[in-house]
């Protein structure tokens, strides 16, 4: 069934891209929230957490207003970057990325908070600049929590539905992910097709969790 394979690969690709897209910023934001006091911290915290509590469809609607043809960011992307986003595969990446970001940021924040600042301070006195201290001390010590966050974000991106359907729609060959197609097939009464998609979804989720378990267990100090 080439359709099922294509949709599966597309979903995996989109989820991977979305996770990679939010990884640097999400980790940096988690670190800033864990280690620094700054103006507007509470506002940023709330904004990042919002997609967790607002219905995904509502988040999708906000994104649609922002990135649509007449939305401020949509105009920016089209005129300056030459990117058309809504109702393309890029919209799927954007929607899943926004929905996955809070999970990554939260996990990163907790992971960094659990690393005592003492270790970084000692590294600094031993001649390490802030960046070396971060990459050789903080990051390795926080890696388990970060990894859990990445897997969680990836899993969220795999299964995102509400925001994606708002921003990307159901466009064959362009925006169809496993989650979107399950809904579509059920609507059409194609229960067997939906069952196949369901099995793949469960398999992917299982694989992601198993991979993270394996990574966490490996090289445990």
């Amino acid at each position, binding site marked *: 069934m080439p359709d099922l394979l294509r949709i599966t690969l597309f979903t995996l690709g989109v989820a991977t891209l979305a996770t990679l897209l939010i990884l640097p910023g999400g980790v940096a934001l988690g670190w800033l929230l864990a280690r620094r006091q700054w103006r507007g911290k509470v506002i940023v915290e709330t904004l990042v957490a919002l997609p967790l509590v607002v219905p995904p469809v509502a988040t999708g609607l906000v994104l649609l207003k922002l990135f649509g043809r007449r939305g401020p960011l949509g105009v920016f992307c089209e005129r300056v970057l030459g990117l058309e986003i809504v109702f393309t595969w890029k919209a799927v990446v954007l929607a899943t990325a926004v929905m996955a970001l809070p999970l990554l940021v939260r996990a990163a924040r907790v992971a960094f908070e659990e690393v*005592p600042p*003492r*270790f970084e*301070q*000692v*590294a*600094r*006195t031993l*001649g390490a600049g802030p960046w070396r201290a971060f990459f050789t001390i903080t990051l390795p010590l926080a890696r388990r929590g970060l990894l859990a966050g990445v897997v969680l974000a990836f899993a969220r991106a795999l299964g995102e539905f509400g925001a994606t359907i708002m921003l990307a729609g159901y466009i064959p060959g362009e925006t169809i992910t496993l989650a979107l197609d399950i809904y579509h097939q059920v609507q059409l009464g194609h229960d067997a097709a939906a069952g196949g998609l369901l099995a793949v979804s469960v398999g992917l989720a299982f694989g992601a969790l198993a991979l993270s378990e394996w990574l966490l267990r490996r090289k445990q*100090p």
Partner: protein
Amino acid sequence: MNLLLEDVVVAAGDHPLHFNAHFTGPSTGLFGPSGAGKTTLIELVAGLRRPERGRIVLDDVVFCDVARGWHLPPEHRRLGYVPQDGALFPHLSVEGNLRYGARPAARAGQLALSHVCALLGLETLRARPVATLSGGEQQRVAIGRALLAAPRLLLFDEPLTSLDASRKETLLPYLRRVRDALRVPLLYVSHAPAEVQALCDELAVLADGRIAQLGPTTEVFRRPADAAVARIVGVETVHPARLREFVGALAAVQVGPTRLLGLADQLPAGTDEVMVSIRADDVMVVKSATPPPASARNRLPAVVRDITCEGAGRRVELDVGFPLAARLTPQAVAELELAVGSPVYALVKVSAVHLMPGTLPS
């Protein structure tokens, strides 16, 4: 060492700490009760904390000058910092920890990894993960890691505090070796008199967020600057007194109903209210009904009020018109048949009666 703290002010808790000192070492102890600001001072020197005001200079390097907006980041200060718990990096092996800040041996003055390992007895530990080390071993690795960074100054923040008594005994010789073999200046935080007496040439006593006294270690213990310092360095008897007269080079003071003679050169002119401090080790006890013949100028009739065990010795609380503590051996207590209520004489040499200006600290 030539470490200058000039008018350094930093907020810690509700009251600001204010440091003014010139440490010359070569090994300087920072001594004081917890909360006096010892760790804060170390962190200021290390650059882990920024003062609100003041300058910090080591030799010819300005670490910090708030007025000019200058703050040298910790990684450029070339210090060896050993915090209380060692803070070994848990994801690295012993070797990984040792090598983390290691500078090329040439620049470090032949301070090679193997040399440091031999000095601290780490040869057999090098491949071990740090989680498997005992507390004393962890501290030794932390010290080695600091040494390999070829520091201009070592900062030790109570490196023995987290260890039990027997491990302290085994680690202390290593610290002495580091001090003597490598001649790296040392700033050593502690609240244990035995440690600073064993390791430090110079001692700064911290009290209430300032440096209450700075001087040679033996001098600070023998001649505390004021009653607060006397209490902190553990002088057993500290009592207010009134200056009565000068008898040649001696000063006569009245402590309650009792007249004591002390050396007068310790007092600035015009002092009236003074504090007397007498170490329990400097008090002799004689069983006698009349003033015994002795060279000691202070022969005070006394009554034993209490006898308590203090380590291997006995602390005898005497009433000589004011409470006076004496430290005796158990043998002496037995031989003199001392018991609560025994009438005795307390003998104190003039030089053991230390007179300080000032009144009782509140």
